[in-house]
């Protein structure tokens, strides 16, 4: 058990509030025992001296240390100003009601803690309880914004010393939650601590301009400037797709040609552009499947006043305005082409951002129909005009449920019906479906590796997923058996790739990973066998 932490510790003048001891993390089966876990890279002295890095053993935000009392006071003042806006209907109509309910009705029963993979995997470190950051914020809220709070809040709700350390640690702590909402699902009252973490991120971004650079500068901002957070402009993405078409044609024996900017097509397919660079076979498989199925579809090369070829929307994780800007431009890409619907590729957060969250942002002509690729693929597989040979997928397969697509959207069965049809050795993880655990890369963590965050992501937030993957393959961990983790989400795939590398799971157990569409094309009779290549990638 990690050292017991008190709420007040967040404000104290100490070098570090809490520490993760890898030997206290939950053990994994052999050959992945605690003693085999790599040691954490230590935060550099530079990081410690220049940034507010006194929360735990890692760092996401790189908030410069205040250099004077005036700077310290300004942090507190701006934080309070942001908190006030968070509870005003004008500034936060988007989440005011759920946030207020979660702030004012928590019974502090800690039911959510045991549902959280980060808290449990860390050896039950109090810092990572879903309630820890919420309780700090709650105490500030009752003390500063409720009538009589100055005098009575400490008795009714507990006291808090709001200083610059409290503020900067709270900002950092908002990035120790995957926003997977598994905690909210178990709350008997319906309190949502993930939403509190989400809105804390918003407060820091929208008022203080503090955000993870991977999400903002290299993410949403880059996407708005050039068309994609990968940095690909339309020419580069078209070149890449052309290359993928050639490669896929060679692998499948089909003549693959991805259509671009087809006005009036039935479907605008929009990928997470990271797929195109990191997992080109994913787009290749979509192109092969859609072409074989005779679907009217297109990609869009819009990159300026509309965004057509990268479905990511990192605003979902930290900033309502960035979310809205990107969602509106996604819808404009579809509007320009006059397609019947947009289909989201294998990307969980893009599914949720555009289909569900932006549903109450897009109005009038911009309210274009949006649909999951899971349902479209199910339709294709079961329509009957394509033939599949499941024996080509005769290897152990398990399915990871992306939180955004499953728990937060209720898309549970289409991917399972497909796997039951095409993967004879498919088995579930425990638990699965809407009770799944996050991969540990959710809410943007999968693209964050600054300082030593990769160690934290692999050893703490990703640990439960490791446990689930190893559990699903527990009788077949022998490296002579190729195994496939099907993760129909780009960010989850990135995290699972990193877990596999970090723990050397390819060499030790021959565990590989990929999307769902690759498995479909791997057994599609129109394509040559061997679409899935068994190598670490």
């Amino acid at each position, binding site marked *: 058990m990690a050292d017991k*932490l008190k709420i007040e510790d967040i404000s104290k003048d100490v070098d570090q509030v809490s520490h993760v001891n890898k030997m206290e993390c939950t053990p994994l089966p052999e050959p992945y025992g605690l003693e085999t876990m790599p040691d954490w890279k230590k935060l550099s002295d530079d990081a410690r001296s220049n940034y507010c890095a006194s929360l735990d053993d890692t760092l996401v935000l790189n908030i410069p240390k205040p250099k004077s009392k005036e700077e310290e006071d300004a942090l507190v003042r*701006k934080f309070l100003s*942001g908190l006030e806006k968070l509870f005003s209907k*004008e*500034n936060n*109509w988007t*989440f*005011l*009601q*759920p946030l207020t*309910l*979660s702030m*004012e*009705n928590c*019974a*502090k*029963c*800690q039911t959510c803690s*045991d549902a959280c993979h980060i808290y449990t995997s860390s050896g039950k470190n*109090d810092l990572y309880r879903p309630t820890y950051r919420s*309780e700090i914020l709650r105490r500030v809220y009752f003390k500063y914004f409720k009538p009589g709070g100055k005098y009575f809040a*400490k*008795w*009714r*709700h*507990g006291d808090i010393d709001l200083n610059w350390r409290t503020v900067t640690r709270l900002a950092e702590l908002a990035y120790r939650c995957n926003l997977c*909402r598994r905690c909210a699902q*178990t*709350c*008997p009252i*319906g309190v*949502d601590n993930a939403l509190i973490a989400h809105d804390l991120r918003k407060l820091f971004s*929208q*008022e*203080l*301009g503090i955000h993870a650079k991977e999400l903002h500068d290299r993410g949403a*901002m880059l996407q708005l*400037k050039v068309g994609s957070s990968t940095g690909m402009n339309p020419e580069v993405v078209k070149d890449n797709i052309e290359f993928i078409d050639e490669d896929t044609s060679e692998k499948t024996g089909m003549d693959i040609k991805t259509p671009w900017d087809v006005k009036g097509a039935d479907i605008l397919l929009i990928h997470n552009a990271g797929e195109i660079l990191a997992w080109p076979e994913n787009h290749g498989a979509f192109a092969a499947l859609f072409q074989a199925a005779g679907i009217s579809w297109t990609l869009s090369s819009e990159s300026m006043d509309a965004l057509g070829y990268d479905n990511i929307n990192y605003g979902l994780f930290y900033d*309502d*305005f960035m979310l*809205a*800007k990107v969602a*509106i431009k996604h819808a404009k890409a579809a509007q320009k082409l006059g397609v019947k*619907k947009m289909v989201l590729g294998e990307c969980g957060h893009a599914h949720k951002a555009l289909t569900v*969250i932006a549903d*109450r942002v*897009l109005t*009038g002509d911009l*309210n274009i*129909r949006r649909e*999951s690729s899971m*349902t479209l693929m199910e339709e294709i597989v079961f329509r009957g005009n394509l033939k599949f040979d499941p024996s080509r997928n005769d290897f152990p397969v398990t399915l990871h449920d992306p939180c955004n697509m*499953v728990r937060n*959207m*209720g*898309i*549970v*069965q289409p991917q399972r019906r497909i796997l039951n049809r095409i993967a004879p050795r498919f088995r579930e993880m425990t638990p699965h*479906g*809407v009770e799944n655990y996050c991969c540990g890369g959710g809410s943007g963590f999968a693209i964050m590796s600054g300082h030593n965050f990769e160690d934290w992501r692999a050893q703490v937030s990703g640990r439960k997923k490791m446990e689930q993957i190893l559990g699903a393959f527990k009788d077949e961990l022998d490296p002579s058996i190729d195994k496939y983790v099907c993760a129909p989400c780009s960010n989850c795939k990135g995290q699972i790739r990193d877990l596999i590398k970090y723990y050397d799971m390819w060499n030790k157990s021959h565990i590989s990973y990929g999307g769902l569409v690759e498995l479909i094309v791997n057994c599609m009779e129109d394509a040559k066998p061997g679409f899935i290549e068994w190598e670490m990638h």
Partner: protein
Amino acid sequence: MSGTVLIHLIIYAAVATFGGVVAYRFFKMWRMPMHLRWELYPVAHEYAKARYGGSILEEIDWWTKERDKSLMGELRVMIPEMTLLVALFEHNRKLWYRSFPFHFGLYCLAGLIGLIVLGALMELIGMDVSAQAGFLGAAVYYATIALAFVGLTLAFAGAFGLYILRKTDHGLREFASFGTMFNLVAFMAVLGVAWLAFAFADGDFELTRGFVGGLITFDLNRPVGSFLVGLEVVLATLLMAYIPMTHMSHFFLKWFTYHKIRWDDEPNEVGSDVEKKIIEQVQYPVSWAADHIKGDGRKNWVDIATEEME
């Protein structure tokens, strides 16, 4: 002013406070702007799909399909949740062993209040409520005693169990403020006095029924007839007035967390009420100060959401 009158006035004020605070907090929440969709599956009114957590979004061209908005589906979840605290049973059994008797005991006591009022009304219209009365009078008489016994026992045991657990469990203790513990002590005190009144002063609730009859008819000079009963009635009503001012307001605000958030999957259709609300709300002026927003209190939400980044 006599003590009897004062007791009556305290009780009227407490009941009015309870009703007023519940109404105020409910309507305050009701009037908040429509939020972005934030549902969490299973969504109970998806009757068949709720069994595994599915949604209409699993369907091809889902917008052409009829949405399942089954009331039965919601009741199937709500009734066991409200009566048996199913979520707590499934996810936090240790706490459920204390919390369930506490809550179920309170439900019994709410039923007890109902039966006392019913009995008082019956007596006001001349009916007898006693062991010797006819079927209805005897039924109310015995049911009142039974509910009191079960309710007081369960609620007190639950409150005591919760108090001990909050004192001894590290996770619960660290998050329990003075106010949290005060609430539990207040419940134990009120329930303890109620037990004493039940055991030693008014075991068949004859005095209480008579007093409540006086409250109903605004007979401010009707004496309680027992110090313990008077104390209990005053304490219980004061506690009742206090509850909605605390986090225990979840007993009615939970309606929002389930119906208006977890289960709110209402899609936005062109021309719908949802769309009208969005169009209204994106006109709100924004004052967020970060450089990428520069809200000055004049630019509205949609201005910022649609302006190009520099």
